[in-house]
């Protein structure tokens, strides 16, 4: 794979067609950029910003500062917002939605989501104006956004790599009332802000009777129980979150560790499921190691200790979103992502070292590497996850190593689960040999 620098210099290939986007050049119509400032100068000239430069934090700040300065200059041109893209009132769009050409086998054409093009320099003003007019004619109610959305759209445009596109993964959901598309950005912004609440510090030092290996055994068993009860995936992730948070605030004797596990799953099931398994089911599945009264007592203890905080972002919340951003997604990809994420959750150091969103993003990155999806990390993924390839490499490497070790491990619940053909038998695929070599 080419280095990131080289990759950025390649024109983006959409639907098999090479198009240059946002290339600096004289005599080109620059009106499309007037609202976020003329970010891209001529390449190689001192007065502009060289877009081939990797987007480091400093460079991003520089881009943003320039954008804000230019915005001040261009205050005259008022803007409207359509589907999250800033559109100048004369109908010239910054980031108008351009449908990608559909690609795929002749038999099964896969519909690709719409694409946000940061600048469409090669389109005539007339075409742009028509497009802007059509966009404005859409229901004002559906598309109305607060001023903060305008600013965030500007900063997104300013921070992104000008020549690469970012797919709007929610474009197809605009008419799907179940997707709550207009709230999705707020929801994930909130998850990112609050995910710290669901994170745990290294608590094994304060556990005199249990250690990381025992935790792995418990998690392995809980994954089997979860599968046996046919519970929803979110229930498993919440269960493990409850277990870890409880263990981080309360010393638990070894003989009660399984009790903590089943009580946590009982709580998570009540929170997530329509029909939760009964207390007796949990007692039976633990071979009557405990009586129901102990389970109920532990349920109360856990809720008290966690102060009833159960509405916490787990890796699952992010996995769903990031898998969607890994377009075009398919069942194999999805299953590989969840396989790697569950391996990560069994591994105590991963859980305490990395926050849920990073675990989820790393699982997607590692899955793409494993399945040979090129490029391994796209602009769309960077946009929706907020993470660069570098930030994910360490965690993804751990996941790839866990995948490699899974067949020989004594704890086989995850491996067994994902060896099943129902889940594309992804566990049986060769792991990404060495993630660092794949860059």
């Amino acid at each position, binding site marked *: 794979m080419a280095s990131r620098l080289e990759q950025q210099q390649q024109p983006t290939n959409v639907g098999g067609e090479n198009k240059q986007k946002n290339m600096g050049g004289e005599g080109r119509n620059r009106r499309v950029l007037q609202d976020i400032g003329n970010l891209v100068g001529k390449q190689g000239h001192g007065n502009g910003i060289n877009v081939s430069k990797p987007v480091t934090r400093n460079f991003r700040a520089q881009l943003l500062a320039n954008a804000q300065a230019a915005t001040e200059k261009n205050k005259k041109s008022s803007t409207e917002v359509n589907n999250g893209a800033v559109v100048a009132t004369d109908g010239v769009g910054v980031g108008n939605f351009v449908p990608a050409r559909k690609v795929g086998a002749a038999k099964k054409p896969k519909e690709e989501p719409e694409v946000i093009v940061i600048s469409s320099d090669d389109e005539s003003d007339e075409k742009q104006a028509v497009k802007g007019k059509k966009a404005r004619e859409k229901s004002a109610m559906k598309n109305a956004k607060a001023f903060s959305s305008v600013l965030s759209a500007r900063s997104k445009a300013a921070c992104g790599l000008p020549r690469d596109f970012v797919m709007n993964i929610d474009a197809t959901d605009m008419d799907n009332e179940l997707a709550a598309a207009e709230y999705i950005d707020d929801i994930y912004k909130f998850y990112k802000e609050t995910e710290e609440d669901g994170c745990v510090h290294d608590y094994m030092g304060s556990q005199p009777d249990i250690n990381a290996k025992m935790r792995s055994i418990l998690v392995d068993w809980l994954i089997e129980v979860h599968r046996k009860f046919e519970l929803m995936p979110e229930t498993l992730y919440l269960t493990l979150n409850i277990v870890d948070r409880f263990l981080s605030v309360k010393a638990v004797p070894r003989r009660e560790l399984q009790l903590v596990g089943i009580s946590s799953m009982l709580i998570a099931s009540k929170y997530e499921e329509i029909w939760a398994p009964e207390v007796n089911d949990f007692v039976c599945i633990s071979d009557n190691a405990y009586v129901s009264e102990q389970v109920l007592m532990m349920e109360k203890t856990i809720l008290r200790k966690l102060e009833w905080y159960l*509405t916490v972002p787990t890796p699952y919340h992010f996995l769903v979103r990031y898998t969607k951003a890994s377009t075009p997604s398919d069942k194999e990809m999805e299953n590989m992502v969840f396989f790697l994420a569950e391996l990560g959750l069994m591994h105590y150091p991963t859980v305490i070292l990395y926050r849920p969103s990073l675990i989820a993003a790393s699982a997607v990155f590692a899955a793409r590497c494993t399945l040979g999806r090129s490029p391994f990390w796209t602009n769309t993924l960077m946009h929706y996850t907020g993470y660069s390839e570098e930030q994910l490499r360490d965690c993804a490497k751990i996941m790839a190593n866990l995948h490699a070790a899974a067949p020989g491990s004594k704890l086989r619940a995850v491996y067994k689960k994902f060896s099943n053909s129902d889940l594309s038998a992804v566990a049986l695929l060769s792991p990404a040999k060495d993630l660092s070599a794949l860059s």
Partner: protein
Amino acid sequence: MWNEESDWIGSFDALLARLAECSMCSRRSGERPGAAQMDVKILDVAAEGGYGRVFRCLDVHTGALVAMKQITMVRLSQGIPAQIIREVSLLRELHHANIVKLLRVGFTENRYVNLVFEHLDYDLHQFIVNRGYPKDATTVKSFMFQILSAVAYCHSRKVLHRDLKPSNVLINHSKRLIKLADFGLAREFADDFLYTEKLGTSWYRAPEILCHSRQYSTQVDLWSVGCIFAEMVIGQPLFQVINCRDELEGIFKLLGTPTEETWPGITKLMPNLHIYCSKFDPLGLETFVTDLEPSGLNLLSMMLCLDPSKRISAEASLKHAYFTDVNWI
């Protein structure tokens, strides 16, 4: 139930035996303190329902009035009911001026769960019935704006209320402040999720739920808000006014029996629709909701839209022309 033998079902000691003995660590850290203690003195019973009772109480430490919802744990063998787990955990996360504050959770005699809330004077149902419904348009507008603000906030936090009705809308009389309450049926939502269809109070229940759909989203709350809106204007539940055998027929009488054109997917959702009820032409909202300005009627019609995909969102409702002159009373 799960009595079949398997290599993984068993006591934890048996599981541990599968691995070599693990080394121990002896450091111990202090426990994090729990929620602050709150002692309450019961003054009187404020309300009673199927769930239990609500008491008006006094916080003995601060002297402040509080409301204590005492919920009876019916199935003691199953521990804390799911609805309490959801209500408490969701309220711990929802911080908004128009959502009731949960102050404390406690247990009594292993039989009751006590939820202590901030005290409010009365609910919207009492306000409509006992005090003469809010006849002035300014109050209706202010109340609606506050309800929608709370609902939009919930939806932006991925939470469906699912039981919006006047008795779950509380009022602070002096400040004319509205607060949403009773999150017992609330839950986080997902776009590929199946939910229970048996929820909400039937007069405020969205048509997709009445049609037994188990896939629904934020739009169910907007339908309920629309019903509350109409009730504030006419002084009684909208679908109680319409003479019909059940709520769904009432909805179809008012808004017209849906077709595949007006509500795509209805024939799949309710294949026996033509057998269930005759084809009604819409009577129209304006027939029943007479004292509402045109922009208000327009907003109401967008909330009470049969097709959920065309129903207005809470976020968009707040930007509707009806609220251009909204006043905080």
